[in-house]
């Protein structure tokens, strides 16, 4: 039960069955990620958590920890690749932080700060993605979706409602709402659903509370996303199963 591996030269204990990400999170070590959440099965799609294990690239949220692994995480090489992935996400959507209620609480923004992203670098897509304000309690702003599928997983696996899904392929992939009209108001979605609180960016927003905590006093205003894993991240580490 006292197996361990090396993460950037530091001994990390793990219990059999844990992924590299789960063990690192349990030890309070930050591996950048967007689609991983301790309470849900690993998805392995955002690739931000890519590390090098024994010199080979691997997504740490899907690889099981094994004794003696040598894992590189926060190297300039890997962070540069993460920065590029983030830049791709920023130009594919419309991430206009100054107008976003989630600014300061946004995992995409905080991760980009952590990686030192100063510019989106690539040419912007500026896609046309109308918002869905039909639901009385929740706004959907698709401009900011990063296709992490956390809402899909939460709605399906926790709420048992299947309100969300991804449709389309490649650059046309997009979040859709499961109702005849495609509107959120025509589903049984509720503001108390787990899916309403799981979005790491500013797509699923509860109405009338957007600025209850003022800009400047928010989660990542107070500390960078790497400053110890959040209580949220630690809570379930070790419970979820690798996908």
């Amino acid at each position, binding site marked *: 039960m006292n197996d361990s591996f090396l993460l950037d030269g530091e001994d990390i204990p793990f219990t059999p069955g844990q992924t590299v990400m789960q063990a690192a999170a349990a030890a309070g070590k930050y591996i950048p990620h967007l689609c991983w959440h301790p309470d849900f099965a690993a998805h392995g799609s955002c690739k931000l958590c890519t590390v090098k294990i024994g010199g080979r690239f691997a997504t740490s949220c899907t690889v099981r920890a094994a004794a003696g692994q040598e894992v590189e995480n926060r190297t300039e090489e890997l962070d540069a690749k993460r920065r590029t992935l983030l830049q791709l996400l*920023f130009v594919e959507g*419309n*991430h*206009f*932080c*100054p*107008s*976003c209620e989630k*600014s*300061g609480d946004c995992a995409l*923004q905080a991760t*980009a*700060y952590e990686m*030192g992203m*100063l*510019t*989106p*670098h690539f*040419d*912007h897509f*500026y*896609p*046309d*993605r109308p918002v869905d304000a039909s639901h009385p309690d929740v706004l959907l702003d698709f401009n900011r979706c990063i296709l992490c599928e956390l809402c899909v997983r939460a709605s399906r696996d926790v709420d048992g409602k299947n309100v969300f899904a991804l449709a389309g392929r490649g650059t046309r992939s997009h979040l859709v709402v499961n109702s005849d009209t495609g509107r959120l108001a025509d589903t049984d979605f509720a503001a108390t659903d787990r899916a309403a609180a799981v979005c790491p960016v500013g797509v699923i927003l509860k109405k009338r509370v957007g600025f209850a905590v003022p*800009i400047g006093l928010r989660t990542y*205003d107070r*500390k*960078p996303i790497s400053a110890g894993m959040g209580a949220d991240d630690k809570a379930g580490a070790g419970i979820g199963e690798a996908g």
Partner: protein
Amino acid sequence: MRIETTNGAGGAPRKLKVATVSLAGCFGCHMSFLDIDERLLPLLELVEFDRSPITDIKHCGPCDIGLIEGGVCNAENVHVLREFRANCKVLIALGACAVNGGLPAQRNHLELADILQEVYRTGHGLAEGSRIPDDPELPLPLNQVHPVHEVVRIDYFLPGCPPSGDAIWTFLTQLIEGKDPSLGHGLLHYD
């Protein structure tokens, strides 16, 4: 690209020439620049301003540092940006609009003709006979607003809406000292 702060080998320190401009911006980044407050005085020991709203000089001459606020929304912006690139050794995108288009780019998913029609012809509260301005002196708007790096090469980016006075001060002093500027937690902001 680093800044050369002496006149050749072993030369005496010289003042760096700095030019600033606001393209499709709101001058908020320039206001934030003034928020370095009394630190403007030590800065003026190190730099002198060429084209800038501070000097009202109309064209940019050869400069060490160019600060560009705002994205590119019309033909004049493109000309001015190219003039800065041709004259500035180091060109910096200052603020959200220069970095990613910012607020003006929020029109980018709309057709330009539809916007002009609604604003000047069909919108609410317009005067009788209101029409789309067509004075030849007006620069033609571009179909979309672009960040400056989509038009010319940019050496450094300083995001923020606006970047705080402290961020601008930290960035500029590091650059003038010949370092690669880096902003830590609390100074790097996109909002």
